[in-house]
């Protein structure tokens, strides 16, 4: 619903009233910011020494290395979870109940368990083998992300296949294609276009979740930030800097997702495409698939 149905175009009185609200709002925000600023100043958070320490070249390099490690873990995790998700979705859609039912259980289980538990599990299983700490951290982080996001993506794939209009598969069966052919030639190519935006926005989730590497001592951005914070003896600015880096990275990925959505909606030139995209997002169900 367009927001402008809820209210009329404001007249001169209303505009004046809204201006008053806006001014009050700005004053409140500004005074809150000023208060925080004074608090920060009295806590000595604006000492130039802090920023000299923080923007020293070795510190920035540590953060940059952390970011590269974050990207490495995210890229590995995304590729592996797309593969796992594809396999699970194929199994889940199988006509053989002996395959479909266990796949469904696996998907439901990994979606219901917190990601951190999976990471701690793999980290624990890898213990006592004299493995290097950073490798152990990377494997447990990527493994956990793969299991969790593989299960989430499996449901996305299934919903995407389900969102292709029914007539498509009926027509394919009617001209004598077998199930494999219907899948490979008719359904999957159309489904990929429908679910591409959802898959890319799942990448934002993966990128954010690599921060859990912090807990298993993998040197990703957040871990490096913590070390930097201890090194420069400041618990505020390094984290804010890291937040900025995450926001920039994720905004880039989100922009790609928006672009893909526009493109897929435009190229289809079918009126039902946007609705189908919406459907692919909605149908993934309730078991914690919300990209929170």
């Amino acid at each position, binding site marked *: 619903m367009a927001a402008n149905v*809820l209210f009329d175009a404001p007249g001169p009185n209303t505009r004046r009233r809204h201006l008053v609200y806006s001014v009050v709002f700005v004053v409140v925000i500004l005074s809150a910011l000023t208060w925080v600023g004074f608090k920060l100043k009295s806590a000595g958070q604006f000492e130039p020494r802090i920023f000299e320490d923080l923007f020293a070249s070795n510190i920035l390099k540590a953060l940059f290395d952390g970011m590269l490690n974050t990207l490495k873990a995210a890229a590995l995790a995304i590729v592996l979870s797309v593969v796992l998700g594809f396999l699970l979705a194929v199994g889940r859609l199988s006509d053989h109940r002996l395959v479909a039912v266990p796949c469904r259980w696996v998907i439901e289980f990994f979606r219901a368990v917190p990601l951190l538990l999976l990471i701690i599990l793999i980290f624990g299983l890898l213990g006592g083998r004299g493995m290097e700490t950073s490798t152990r951290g990377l494997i447990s982080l990527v493994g956990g992300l793969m299991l969790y996001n593989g299960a989430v993506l499996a449901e996305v794939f299934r919903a995407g296949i389900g969102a292709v209009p029914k007539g498509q598969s009926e027509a394919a069966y009617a001209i004598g294609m077998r199930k494999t052919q219907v899948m490979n030639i008719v359904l999957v190519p159309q489904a990929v276009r429908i679910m591409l935006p959802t898959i890319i926005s799942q990448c934002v989730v993966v990128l954010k979740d690599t921060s859990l590497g912090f807990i298993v001592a993998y040197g990703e951005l957040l871990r490096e930030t913590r070390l930097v914070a201890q090194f420069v003896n400041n618990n505020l600015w390094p*984290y804010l800097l890291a937040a900025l880096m995450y926001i920039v990275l994720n905004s880039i990925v989100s922009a790609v997702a928006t672009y893909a959505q526009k493109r897929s909606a435009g190229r289809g030139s079918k009126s039902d495409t946007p609705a189908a995209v919406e459907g692919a997002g909605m149908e993934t169900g309730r078991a914690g698939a919300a990209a929170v």
Partner: protein
Amino acid sequence: MNVFSDNWRAILTAFGITVEMTLIAGVIALVVGFLLAALRVSPIPLARGAAASYVRLIRNTPLLLIMLIFAFGLPELDFRPRFNLNKVFGVQDQSPLLNFDIFFLFATIALGMYTAAFVCEAVRSGVNSISIGQAEAARSIGMTFSQTVREVILPQAFRAVIPPLASIMIAMTKNSSLAAGVGVTEAAFLMRKLTNDNGDKVFLIFMGFAIGYIVLVAIISATASFLERKVGTA
């Protein structure tokens, strides 16, 4: 010896802290989320923009980072609240369930404020899912903006919003495990400790804690379907 029978008290306490976090953060998330959603559909452009920027910033920042900013950054501002209800109730045997230290409080507030952004989006798309004729009819019989929203849109949107809110609450329950990263002794924290101490029983311990979380998730799911039926028949 059996890990679970030896540590049942600690495990119950840890899950108790998880439940406490979930409940408090859930209230924060719902209240702040609904307020943000109200700002996001309001007639004032500045309010819409402010709410939209909040959602955008929060959605692109990892929860663990927000928790770290709250737990380590805010104490630098000499902001150190702490509620030890053990003293209030005069409990002799100090229970960690009643001792809300700053890490618990800040992690919980961070979880609530983070989840609020997602609640805002869910409520907004719930409002958008109401047929446009409803708002038009309300406006045409002369209802104001706040009357339209309060009397017509929200009661209907509430029903549409229950399933997505339930999945957000479920995700929040799972996300509460990240508080282990700032030293809150909740379930995931205890699981990490137990797996460190019992290297040979890692998988067993994992299954135990996983089942604990699945039970919590099932409770939220059941509550949501109950609410949905209740609102649906009204």
